[in-house]
């Protein structure tokens, strides 16, 4: 390789502004293409299996048929029909109750256990494993286990209730109790995951901050409220978003335990969609309900992110 020396040689190698623009544009294009090629393995399945089905579902919600027979455009008829369907309203209510109860319970318990595991580390791996095991069980199996737990004659719950003198309770004959059983089954299943999630989050909190609070005379509960919780908040909000998305789609446990009963008291949104799509061949109504579910999840996700962002914005403006 020959050395480049002198003004002339350098000038000869220099590009005119026009040439430079073209070259840099080519370079940027090459870089972009390479970037997009790297994205392709993710983006293509994302497009094919998520974006297209979403828009396809939206389109089919304005049609009748579409699975077994040809889709026929019916305008807003499916939307009007599910709008006047009391089961959909009940399903949305049940799902909302379930999501609030399940998230509140599992987060409270998981945070409590994470705090204990964070403090007492000896032998904690055994507990972590024990907590995580239910998550490895398929949801159908979890449903079957809880069918036995809630059994009238020999279920664990009724065994405890009779032992303490309350007497047996017909859990699957009572809408509230049946929904609560589904909540408990899902809490039991998700507890391990969320405990480990919160444990990892707790371990990321700088020890110095807690020490400083301790030196300042803050007691345990004060340190938890004033230091731990504020620092956990971003992780907590993210967890809420994930949990909302997952819990709004509850189906398998409902399918195995109650199939929406007694009298629609455990009918959830996905159960409603499944019934319309596959049991009754009312595909348009099923797709319309699926679009509503998507809308609810998107709205709640956006709300959570907005809340997270607004806190950051407030914090930044306070610092400024």
């Amino acid at each position, binding site marked *: 390789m020959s050395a480049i020396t002198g003004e002339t040689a350098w000038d000869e190698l220099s590009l005119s502004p026009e040439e430079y623009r073209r070259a840099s544009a080519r370079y940027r294009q090459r870089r972009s293409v390479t970037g997009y090629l790297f994205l392709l393995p993710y983006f293509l399945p994302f497009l094919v299996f998520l974006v297209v089905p979403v828009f396809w579902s939206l389109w089919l919600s304005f049609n009748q*048929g579409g*699975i*077994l*027979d040809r889709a026929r455009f019916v305008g807003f*008829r499916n939307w009007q*029909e599910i709008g*006047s*369907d*009391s*089961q959909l309203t009940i399903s949305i209510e049940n799902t909302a109750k379930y999501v609030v109860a399940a998230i509140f319970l599992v987060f409270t318990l998981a945070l409590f256990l994470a705090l204990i595991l964070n403090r007492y580390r000896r032998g904690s791996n055994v507990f972590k494993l024990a907590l995580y095991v239910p998550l490895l069980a398929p949801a*159908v199996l979890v449903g*079957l286990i809880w069918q036995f737990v809630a059994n*009238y*004659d020999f279920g664990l719950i009724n065994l405890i209730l009779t032992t303490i003198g309350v007497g047996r309770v*017909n*859990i*699957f*004959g*009572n*809408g509230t109790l*049946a929904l609560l059983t589904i909540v408990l089954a899902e809490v039991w299943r998700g507890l391990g995951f969320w405990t480990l999630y919160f444990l990892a989050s707790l371990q990321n909190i700088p020890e110095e901050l807690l020490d400083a609070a301790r030196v300042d005379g803050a007691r345990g509960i004060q340190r938890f409220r004033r230091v731990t919780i504020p620092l956990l908040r971003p992780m907590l909000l993210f967890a809420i978003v994930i949990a909302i998305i997952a819990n709004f789609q509850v189906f398998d446990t409902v399918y195995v335990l*109650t*199939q*929406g*009963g*007694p*009298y*629609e008291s455990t009918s959830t949104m996905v159960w409603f969609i*499944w*019934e319309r*799509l*596959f*049991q*009754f*061949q*009312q595909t348009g*109504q099923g797709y319309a309900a699926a679009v509503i579910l998507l809308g609810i999840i998107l709205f709640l996700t956006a709300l959570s992110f907005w809340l997270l962002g607004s806190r950051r914005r407030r914090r930044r403006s306070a610092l400024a």
Partner: protein
Amino acid sequence: MDKLGDDSQGALAGDGIAEPSAYSRREFLKKAAGAALALPAAGAVVGSAAALPRVKVGEAAQPYAGVTLQFAKAPFGTDEKEVIAKLLAPFEKRTGIKVVHTVIPWNTEGATYATNYAGPNPYDVSYQTSTDLTGLGTKGVLEVLNTSQWLDAPSFASTKAKFIPNVFEKSTYQGKLYGLPCIIGGTVVYYNKDLLKKAGVATVPTNTTELAAAAVKVMKSGGSGVWGYQTPMTDKDFNWYFQYHNIHNWGTDIISRDGKSVTFTSSGNMHALQTAVDLILKYKVQPPVGQYDREAGVSLFEAGRIAFLDDEPLRLPVFRSQKLPFAWDFVAPMAAPNGKRTIFSTTGHWVMASKSPNKGAAWELIKFLSSPAFASPFGAHYGWAPVRTDVDTSKGDPQVKRINHYVLTSWDGLPTGPKMAQLTDVYGQAIEAAATGSKTVKAALAKAQVDGTNILKS
């Protein structure tokens, strides 16, 4: 009132096929999900011809050699795949058709068939009940069978004449028949003779009023944990199926004869549901809804804790094989107080996919499945009644003969229609609402009327 009847444990006809184990739609999902999802192997080979195919086949000539048919069915028992393989062997040998049998769980059959028929290679032949038959048929995925090519072909005329006319009528929708009826059944009321004797019930009730009175007596004498009566009452356990004879007994239905309106709020429907609800909420002779599911109810009967159990005849061979520790028998489902006594079941059909590339072979299989060579031993094994006069499912067994007698003399089936699955679900919800006390019978059926009307409009 009937007399208490013969001891059922004595008579047992051998059909050369092993006794099936306890089985139902619920239990299948719970206990045999793995088996249900597994793709089956092909049937065995050997045997002789019995159905009369249009194409006369000699032993050497196999007109469909090399043809494979995909066959699917929700099972009547855990042993059904083996039973069918054994019965199909002569057919496979004679025709050269290889039948690949897929077991479809009852509780997922709607979804399974919907996705299968939407695909390019649907099951060539499958089993569909009148609940789903027309829903699939009107979507165009099932072949219309009452055409000159199949059912109305001159060569099939003599066979067609052997079918009970009522089953064709119930299974035809707007002039189209999407499946060849093969099975009708019903429910029967099994009863524990020992519990009745102990309660001083000398004769078996024949109607719902007498049933309630007898069940109350049993509750008084039976002691803790004994119930007078049990029948599935949740939508999850297909409660509507076990209540439908009540509707017919009260001279009504959930849909008008022309299929254009629902009739949930008819006086007959009110009475029928009130009668069922009273057994739980008024007389308290039946466990509350949700306390025991269908299988648990059957287990309680087997344990001697239920006096009257309303369930399907397919329990018969199971109860016999278990040698229950008490005397038992069965009678036809209870009549209405006015005396009308019918027996209900949906109709089973063999259907052919309209997209099947082997329709000729599929029709041969359907004809064989409907013939005495298959239908007699198959029906006998599971306690189903025949739909053809030349098919005998009793094989001399007095109990099965009795069931067949009930069915053939008083069967009143489900009118088929594209929305029947949804309408029966609406009725199931109404039963649940009323039986749990969440709504009065009137309010529950009024809601069903509104929901049903919307369904028919959609």
